């Protein structure tokens, strides 16, 4: 039976390739190609290669600002989603006695994500807005006299929306990693006199590293590739790289958008590759 399976390997994988090639590989190549061409001003492309698009990107001060903004939000989101996600996962794995309850609570956390992103975004308005619940509560209780402006349509709200949306991407892989820690290892450590802090530092953290890495990959790639959360939640006050890309496409400036896309994609790829080097993904997702 062993030898006969060789052929079937490729047969079984071909449907996947049939999708990946035209809908991932090809588009990337097309974008790459378009980035070297010029726009005819009407949404068409002139087939004369140029590096002008890239030159524009690298000499424009706007580019730097955009990347700074994007990276700023990426880091903040990563930080908060990691902190919250880590502790939630830790709580579920180590403090809930019944595995059934742990899974149930875990599902409770995932359920909101089965609803539309966009709806969840606009749902912040009645909560954080000037006439929103929080401001109303704060004013009524006398803590502040005027509604807090920064709650909505600001950097604050952007990060809140991102963290709200993406913490689950941290919880899932970390929960998975932690769940695989052999409880007997922890018991042996307790037996040897380790404090709970020691156990966290010497056992739980190192063994959760893979989960953290996977979660980071998700969070980073989603935030860096986002354009609508930041647009809506900042009220137009902030912009992101992809946001600017979106604007370009809106005015049919495909080549410059393509160049920007290529640069961004390379950046994201570099970050993800760097993280992937430190974790064996295939081993990590087995149960």
């Amino acid at each position, binding site marked *: 039976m062993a030898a006969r399976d060789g052929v079937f390997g490729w047969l079984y994988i071909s449907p996947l390739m049939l999708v990946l090639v035209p809908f991932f590989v090809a588009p990337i190549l097309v974008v790459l190609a378009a980035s070297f061409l010029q726009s005819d001003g009407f949404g068409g492309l002139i087939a004369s290669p140029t590096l002008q698009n890239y030159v524009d990107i690298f000499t424009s001060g706007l580019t730097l600002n955009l990347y700074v903004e994007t990276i700023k939000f990426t880091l903040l989101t990563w930080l908060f989603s990691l902190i919250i996600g880590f502790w939630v996962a830790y709580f579920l794995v180590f403090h809930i006695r019944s595995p059934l309850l742990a899974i149930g609570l875990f599902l409770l956390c995932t359920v909101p994500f089965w609803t*539309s992103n966009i709806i969840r975004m606009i749902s912040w308005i009645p909560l954080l807005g000037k*006439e929103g619940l929080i401001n109303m509560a704060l004013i009524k209780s006398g803590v502040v006299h005027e509604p807090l402006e920064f709650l909505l349509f600001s950097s604050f709200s952007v990060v809140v929306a991102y963290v709200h949306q993406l913490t689950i991407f941290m919880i899932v892989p970390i929960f998975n990693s932690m769940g695989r820690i052999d409880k007997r290892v922890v018991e042996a450590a307790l037996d040897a006199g380790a404090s709970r802090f020691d156990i966290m530092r010497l056992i739980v953290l190192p063994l959760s590293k893979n989960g953290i890495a996977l979660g980071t990959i998700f969070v980073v790639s989603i935030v860096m590739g986002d354009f609508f959360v930041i647009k*809506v939640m900042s009220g137009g006050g902030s912009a992101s790289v992809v946001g600017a890309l979106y604007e370009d496409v809106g005015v049919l400036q495909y080549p410059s958008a393509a160049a920007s896309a290529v640069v961004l994609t390379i950046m994201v790829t570099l970050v993800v590759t760097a993280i992937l080097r430190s974790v064996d993904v295939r081993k990590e997702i087995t149960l």
Partner: protein
Amino acid sequence: MSTAPASKTVAGHAIAPRASGRPWTFYVLLAVFVLYVLALYGPMFCIYILSFQDVRGGLVFPMKGLSLHWFVDLFTQVRTGDVKGSFDRSVKLAVIVTVITVVVSFLAGLAFRRRFRGDGVVFYLMIGSLVAPGLVLSIGIGLLLTFIGVEARWYTSAVGAQLSWTLPFGVLVMFAVMSRFDRAWEEAAYDLGASRWQAMRLVVIPILAPGLVAVALFGFTLSYDEFARTLQTAGSLNTLPLEIWSMTLNVTSPSLYALGTVTTIISFVIIAVCLGTIGRMQKRRASRVPPL
């Protein structure tokens, strides 16, 4: 810290001391957890409540009264957007994507059981497809279509664009599911005289069924909510997320909230059905281990 010996519960799960109750960290973390769940559900509850806003009410609190006006508005008024049509399309698209995702992920999961030439390449292509900025792929596909001279349609190009997102997830789930599949079951089937197809039909697929349902669940919800990749590839007719997007830019009434409530209910129903199916399957197996 308590020096009581660690508990050996039946589930073997907790390290908290047994009889003496919980350590203080439990309560802190419990508070964190509760706050997190509240923060998760909080904004949405606002929407649910506000969707019952009175006719005279606006987008924010306070509620001026209760009514179903906005739900009606949602489904009848053309100016609020083509909700019925786009919802219809979203569901159909999601079903197509789900079916393809399940079949392709299953086959890919089978393929990855052994090493084969180029398996590393395929794997990283999948990861690449997952982390690539959705809008970039969307634009790329759009450009490609223009090149070839084919028009984008929600039932063709959008399917492919969404698959580039759902398939990696599906295959990753299959990895996890397959790793729990004992090859001995398959070998026993062959030993007893089953052909390749019989072994697949009578043994492999039934045993993997809960995992396949999980992949279907992922596929459906990922497709149903997909926005960035669908943006440039759906063509002239919108899916629901695209419709919502244009509504947020134009519509300023609580009918948007009503829409939120409706889509949430639908998502919940689908999930409940899938989880219920998985639960029932597991119970019939009397298996002690959860599917994921």
